[in-house]
């Protein structure tokens, strides 16, 4: 499963980045590494881009970029312990 398919209520863990070079570097610099927890924060009116919460920060990714991130869904319910 890739990040663009992640449903708003779920938390996922990054398993793999399928892109290379500068794109891969960029995603890693933004904190997206294998093992990183990600959840959907906001969806733009047109559904693209989507804002994700990563390591306490919110980052927006286009669907094309999110598709380059393989994930595993970690749990059923998002914890609301904010």
């Amino acid at each position, binding site marked *: 499963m890739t990040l663009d398919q992640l449903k708003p209520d779920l938390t996922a863990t990054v398993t793999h980045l399928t892109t290379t*070079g*500068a794109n891969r*570097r*960029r995603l890693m*610099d*933004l*904190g997206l590494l294998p093992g990183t927890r990600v959840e959907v924060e906001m969806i733009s009116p047109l559904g693209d881009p989507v804002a994700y919460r*990563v*390591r*306490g*920060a919110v980052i927006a990714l286009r669907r094309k970029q999110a598709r380059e991130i393989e994930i595993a869904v970690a749990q059923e319910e998002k914890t609301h312990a904010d």
Partner: protein
Amino acid sequence: MLTDACQTCPIYNESALKKLGVNTENFDFVVALAGNPNTGKSTVFNALTGLRQHTGNWPGKTVARAEGGFEYNDHNFKVVDLPGTYSLLSTSTDEEIARDFILFGQPDVTIVVVDATRLERNLNLALQILEITDRVVVALNLIDEAARHGIKVDERHLARELGVPVVPMVARRMVGVPQLLQAVEEVILGTYPTRPHRIKQQDTRLEQVIGQLVNAIETQFPSLPNARWVALRLLDGDASIEEAVRNHTLGDLARSNVIAPVGDVIPLQAVAS
């Protein structure tokens, strides 16, 4: 009456700070301000120089570097406010300005401003900077905001792990500025011996290749301070570094983007007030 304890306290020395605004003539030391976007670099810059470099809560606000000055304990410092960057490795124009200055501008100290509320993410850049220079002070900014989110950072532990001073700050309210100045001075004078955290390279074959490249680079560019870093980037396939090596502009990078927009900022401020 002042006691000895007073004189060693950073608060005592606050009066030793003289903000020099845009006057950066005859400086003894250069201080670079680096950090992720929107961590308060420009706020720290303004706190040190007394300037009013435009601050804002959106990234990409500082696209070129701004310069200002201050005097502290009879030394003149030039401060260079760099654009925010997540990494020294990716390439957009503003990120390149920051990268080139830290790498080739050879500042006497680089202050890495980190956001205490997003520390984990900010440490990526901090660690990258520690790879290329041991003269670093970490300004742990926005601790008030972090406290509001229930985050308390153990700055002494962090300083021990990173091997450089970590100064908790609320730059917006001048909290931590005296301590920051003291840390900067101590790192410059060597009274705070830094031991920057660096990831050890285990692969001997890779070490061998790096060694060969470093030799070649140092022969071609004898004045280059970070040959090892350049070698690693070449092995990584970094196109902009390859280009700079190929047309012999490596090392000129730091001098190519000199823009001092603070001159523009002051008249704007005068209009506003």
